[in-house]
């Protein structure tokens, strides 16, 4: 059965379907529907909702619930996510699972409350201090929010690592019909957690920590984390390719921008133009292999973002700069339209004709 809900509410309900039983957050636009939904829904399923005094407190409450073995989530938007970075670094260092939602808005600073994709660097480069990575998933529709939210809890538990769901104000606020079907869920809240703190009954006491003062201890932790990140990159990279076999130009876009780009691609295909698209679904790990394969076949890339150019760097790195990579972006609430992308594309397209 299909229901009509907004993205923030869909994400909240999907997390509950995934077994999330702890949520803490601090109000910020454009994600306020999410905590409001949680405040009503969590008590119904025997979970806990807390409106925290700050983002710092919220992420650390999640830290507490997570180390106790509970599936836990917090959500915010750009300025609030900056405040959570300390906590995310500690989650990574202590190897605790958690899901963090960022419904991006314009920045820097207080910016505005319009949708944006300008936290890509922060999300994929670490954000907080130290040698760590977080998995970053970018849904492009409300149905995909359901799927990726459930997947994110599985990933967080499987790899004992923070996972970020990176959306934007549009995805959070828009309404679409979705199927919320707990029958088809892939989520496995039953993953055995033999590392949690629950009182040392019939076992040796456990410690959760990220301080390693002994000679070489921290380097060993970091090496182990890197092995884990390599495994994640090998097994959990996700992307969607459209017309990958015969395109001369490939548009690269994620999330909301991939929806606009898809329309452009389909429109141009109808005119017989050989344009395709790569949509990264996991932003970290980034679909480098898929890009490399495409770079063997196509002439050029055009990256489209609601930012001044962030993911474009990963595209260049992914293809090792073997093909020209163009960029079109708008930021601060500006949204590249189909016409604008089309214009940009046609300029590049005609210059590549013999």
């Amino acid at each position, binding site marked *: 059965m299909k229901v009509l809900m907004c993205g923030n509410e869909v994400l909240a309900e999907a997390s509950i379907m995934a077994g999330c039983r702890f949520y803490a957050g601090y109000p910020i636009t454009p994600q306020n529907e999410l905590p409001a939904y949680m405040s009503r829904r969590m008590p119904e399923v025997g979970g806990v909702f807390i409106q925290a005094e700050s983002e710092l407190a919220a992420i650390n409450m999640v830290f507490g619930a997570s*180390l106790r073995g509970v599936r836990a989530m917090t959500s915010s938007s750009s300025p609030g996510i900056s405040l959570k970075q300390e906590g995310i670094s500690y989650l990574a260092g202590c190897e605790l699972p958690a899901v963090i939602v960022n419904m991006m808005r314009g920045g820097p600073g207080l910016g505005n409350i319009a949708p944006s994709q300008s936290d890509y660097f922060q999300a994929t480069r670490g954000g907080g201090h130290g040698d760590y990575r977080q998995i970053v998933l970018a849904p492009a529709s409300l149905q995909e929010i359901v799927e990726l939210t459930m997947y994110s809890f599985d990933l967080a538990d499987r790899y004992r690592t923070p996972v970020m769901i990176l959306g934007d104000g549009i995805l959070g606020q828009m309404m679409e019909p979705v199927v919320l079907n707990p029958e088809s869920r892939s989520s496995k809240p039953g993953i055995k957690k033999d590392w949690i703190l629950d009182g040392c009954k019939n076992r040796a006491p456990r410690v959760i920590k990220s301080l390693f003062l002994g000679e070489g201890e921290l380097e060993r932790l970091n090496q182990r984390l890197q092995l884990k990140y390599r495994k994640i990159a090998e097994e959990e990279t996700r992307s969607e390719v459209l017309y990958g076999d015969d395109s001369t130009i490939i548009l690269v876009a994620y999330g909301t921008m991939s929806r606009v780009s898809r329309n452009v691609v389909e429109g141009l295909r109808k005119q017989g133009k050989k344009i395709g698209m790569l949509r990264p679904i996991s932003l970290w790990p980034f679909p480098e292999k898929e890009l490399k394969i495409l770079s063997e076949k196509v002439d050029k890339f055009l990256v489209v973002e609601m930012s001044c150019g962030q993911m474009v760097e990963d595209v260049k790195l992914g293809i090792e700069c073997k093909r020209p990579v163009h960029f079109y972006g708008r930021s601060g609430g500006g949204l590249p339209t189909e016409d604008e992308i089309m214009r940009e594309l046609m300029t590049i397209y005609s210059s590549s004709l013999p």
Partner: protein
Amino acid sequence: MDTIFSKPDSMKDVPTHYCPGCGHGVVHRLICEVVDELGIRESVIGIAPVGCAVIAYDYWDFDVTETAHGRVPAVATGIKRTHPENIVFGYQGDGDLAAIGTAEIIHAANRRENITIVFVNNSLYGMTGGQMAPTTILKQKTATTPLGRDPKREGFPLKVCELLSVLPGVFYAERVALYNPQNVLKAKKAIRKAFQNQIDGSGFSIVEVLSQCPTYLGLSPKDAVKWVEEDMLKEYPLGVFKG
């Protein structure tokens, strides 16, 4: 032969890293004695702060987590709310609780979180080299108040028990000290009460322990203890502020 004095079961049999005359070892032990006496070792979860006591888990023989600086009450909230059957306590210093974590402690208390906080106030930052703490007393010289704390420049000593006791969410707030055996026993009684309150579901309990840091007071262990009794006590009167 009867054993009349021994190491608490909850305390590991290892030497601590604390400086000679430091109060942390005593407070660690008091907590372990209380945990043993209340029979809660298998349900207790301790939370270590950032500061000298960060590696308290090397001495406590039960489940312990570390946290980011000042976030102990938030982490405690996440644990206790999801699993009220666990006995959750936070161990915080004056920088952790009264400076960087001021928001977290006030709001955890105000939410009436059913947790126990042991707050060790030694009037300065020990781990980073003896800088001024919010609780540094007036005229006290520290690494960052070389001329002595001047209220015109650095403001006033922060009185945590007085501040928290006005909140309806606080069930119990007491200030104790360690400067003589009688007061150590009183400190233990207060810590025990703060744990018992949690077992009874009474709400937020805090015990502020005035402690001594001979190293950064620049005093011998004996004189440091005397300093707490003669100078620190004037600023921080002992007693029950609530409960």
